[in-house]
């Protein structure tokens, strides 16, 4: 019932929060290793996978019985994001590819988007409560 009220966006928001938290940890680890020789900056991509998974529910899941079958789109629960090496333009002599400016900007963006999702979730619950408590009057 709650699922239908919010047409599944609860799940999307929840997954978004999860993935943003992981991304925050990866970005944080880049900042902590900003001067570690040989460290390669990493990032996590999940936006496309998350978008594809929206509106794709468990009932639609296709069975892949042959490896040559087309890969099926991922369900929301399976979206994990992929670990990628972040682009860098200044690899110094210590082979460290972290650009602190970029990492801090990404960190800020990520936090804002996390907070936005959390805010929307809050408001959804607020709406739900209002519906429950004010509907009887």
């Amino acid at each position: 019932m709650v699922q239908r009220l919010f047409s599944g966006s609860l799940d999307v928001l929840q997954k978004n929060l999860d993935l943003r938290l992981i991304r925050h940890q990866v970005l944080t680890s880049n900042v902590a290793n900003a001067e570690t020789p040989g460290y390669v900056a990493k990032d996590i991509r999940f936006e496309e996978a998350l978008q594809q998974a929206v509106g794709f529910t468990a009932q639609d899941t296709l069975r892949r019985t042959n490896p040559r079958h087309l890969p099926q789109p991922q369900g929301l629960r399976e979206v994990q994001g992929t670990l990628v090496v972040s682009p860098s333009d200044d690899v110094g002599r210590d082979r460290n590819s972290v650009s602190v400016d970029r990492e801090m900007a990404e960190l800020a963006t990520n936090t804002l988007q996390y907070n936005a999702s959390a805010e929307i979730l809050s408001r959804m619950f607020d709406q739900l409560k209002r519906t429950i408590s004010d509907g009887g009057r």
Partner: protein
Amino acid sequence: MDMLAGLHVSYSGLQAQRARMNVIASNLANANATRTPEGGPYKRQDVIFAASPQAASFADLLDTQLHNGVREVRVLNVVRDPSAIRLEYDPKHPDANAQGFVAYPDINLLQEMVDLVSASRLYEANVTAINTAKDMALRALQIGRI
């Protein structure tokens, strides 16, 4: 997934940068020290950082390959540069050798200061990362609060 794992990573960054600042401070303070307990002039020191995988919980190991992306930083070692010696002619100095040369540590003040600024900025960057992690955790706590 540990909500506060990011805090530990940033904390390791703080520790590492603080260790670096201490070593730089020691280099600056001893820029003219001609005697040390181990003999000879003070030797310039430097820290070596290494990325190390986080001590993972069992659940994390089961969880995803994404855990591989998270690395703490740790101070592997503090090394001395034995060749960093500058000879200066000063026959009246008590530590002068037979030729009248005194061995001073070869410390480049400019380089140390630049390193100090860099360490302090990175320290701030890690503090910012900690604050954002804290904000995110607080925000998550407020989701259910109506």
